[in-house]
């Protein structure tokens, strides 16, 4: 009987072990950081960019080869050396968690009404019809499907005039604001009518296209572009204990920005400068500053900031460095605050 007792105990214990281990299986899951995908060049971005090169401009007299199709948005955006040029992939962002949160929660009743007015007055559903928004210096370009749009209501308040073969310019009488509707796919805004006209001239081939402000290989992520060094220096100067702003101004030539919003918001900033050593030193200083900020946040008991800085890193390579930053959705939800709309956007 005693001998059978050991066997019985073995069987019962095996059953208990299986139950306990199965209970432990439930605790397996994604960690908080599994949803962070830092933007990197991917073949699907290349394919997307290739599909968008639909604008065939007449070749210039000096050109020898056939005309190369170009991306109309990049042709329209002026290339201002040292300036900021940024593109938002509105259609991709709309379906992202942060996009959904912004649409559902951050648009108040007033903003929702304005969107409904735009739909009624112009036949433009801003949330559905807009594909990309680009901004460079004095010009902002909205690209999308505006084939169903009716601009009659705009002409009632603004002064219209045709420009080129496919554009209509609307000027606001009291302010220096110009809106241009180009075909059924583009709306251009700006304070300087001459810049808007120049953009249309480039689109119609009346002006030679400048090299794109964002090269093809840098067009990846849901937000991408180049940021003016002065803008970043201004930002850094706000809380600069390490003299980083001056070092940044002297060492950096260009900062390329990429943002992925497919899950959590992940940001990569590629920093380039003429002096590789100076850029390397800046990377080390920035890494140390992030580390100190994190330690300070831990010491101050600011766990959210410390967690955020956990995900920050500097990756130096070939005389440049990239700064990776991540903003988890949980963090953003808390930071952005509760829903402005009582229905949480469900009525949309």
């Amino acid at each position: 009987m005693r001998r059978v007792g050991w066997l019985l105990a073995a069987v019962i214990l095996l059953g208990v072990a299986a139950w306990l281990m199965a209970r432990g299986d439930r605790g397996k899951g994604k960690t908080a950081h599994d949803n962070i995908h830092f933007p990197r060049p991917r073949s699907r971005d290349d394919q997307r960019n290739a599909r968008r090169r639909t604008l065939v401009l007449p070749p210039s007299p000096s050109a020898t080869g056939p005309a190369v199709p170009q991306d109309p948005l990049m042709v329209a955006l002026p290339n201002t050396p040292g300036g900021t040029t940024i593109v938002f992939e509105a259609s991709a962002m709309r379906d992202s968690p942060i996009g959904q949160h912004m649409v559902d929660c951050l648009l108040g009743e007033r903003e929702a009404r304005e969107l409904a007015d735009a739909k009624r007055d112009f036949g433009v559903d801003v949330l559905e019809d807009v594909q990309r928004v680009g901004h460079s210096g004095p010009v902002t370009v909205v690209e999308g499907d505006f084939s169903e749009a009716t601009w009659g209501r705009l002409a009632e308040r603004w002064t219209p005039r045709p420009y080129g073969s496919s554009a209509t310019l609307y000027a606001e009488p009291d302010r220096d604001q110009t809106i241009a509707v180009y075909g059924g796919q583009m709306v251009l805004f700006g304070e300087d009518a001459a810049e808007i006209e120049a953009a249309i001239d480039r689109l119609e081939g009346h002006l030679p296209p400048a090299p794109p402000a964002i090269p093809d290989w840098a067009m990846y992520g849901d937000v991408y572009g180049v940021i003016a060094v002065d803008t970043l220096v201004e930002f850094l100067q706000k809380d600069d204990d390490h003299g980083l702003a001056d070092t940044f101004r002297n060492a950096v030539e260009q900062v390329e920005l990429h943002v992925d919003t497919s899950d959590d918001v992940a940001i990569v900033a590629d920093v380039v400068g003429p002096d590789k050593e100076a850029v390397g030193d800046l990377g080390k200083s920035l890494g140390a500053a992030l580390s100190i900020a994190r330690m300070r946040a831990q010491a101050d008991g600011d766990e959210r900031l410390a967690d955020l800085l956990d995900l920050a890193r500097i990756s130096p390579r070939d005389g440049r460095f990239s700064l990776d930053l991540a903003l988890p959705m949980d963090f953003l939800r808390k930071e952005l605050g509760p829903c402005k709309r009582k229905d949480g956007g469900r009525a949309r």
Partner: protein
Amino acid sequence: MRTLAVALDLLREAASRRWFLALGIGITLLLACFGLALRIEVVDGALAATRLFGKVLDTDIRSVDVAMRYVYRAVAYVIAYGGLLFGIVACADFAPSLLSPGRIEHLLALPVRRWELLAGTFLGVLVLALLGAVYGAGGLTLILSVKTGYWTARPILAALLASVTFAAIYGAMLASALLARSAAISAAVGVALFVSGIVAGNRETLAPLLEPGLRRALFEGATLLLPRVSTMADTAADLAASVPVDGLALGSRLAGLAVFALSALAFAIWRFEQRDF
């Protein structure tokens, strides 16, 4: 008490085996070599550069404790998988040698019950595995902590978790030695359980790949009983890397492994009680 005496006897036997001493010296030499070859540059709490044998490793600049999480994660996986495999091979011979003709008769003649003899052997092997894991993990942690100035005991915690997994596997090895007195078979059972434990740890991912029906039910049923080796390795790595771990689930897994080990031990005792020597 007599169980402890048997365990101590086993530890004395292990110490007298030269290759266990060689193992201790080997681990010490490896740690010393690693410690001398590793150069870490820390600037204001940020890991700025790492060189191993003069070669630059990871060039990312980030807080030293954040950067070290990846190192400790890797260390935890090495301890969990490498340590388990080594333990299986190194300890496969203990139970068969206990049962070897001449020795077993001598042991059974002593005033020790059969279950105490087996439990003592089991306990002795576990202590041995624990000492090896803690020595290796502790030494590595000490070197990295001195080099970086960031002190943590988490990799040692990871080594302790790996030891619990080893307890489950060694329980089955001990039981197999009672069925067939062979170090090779004992090691083979350990390796088989190690591999199937990796599969069992991923059972929830793998099961949907099978067509619903008998095959999937058989897979789910079989893997339900196996220790989750890969899950424990992942948990050890998470702990070492300061990733939050679900305490309740971890407690369940640890208790499950311990009970599995006791189940295997009970089976081994049942078999031992039945046998005539």
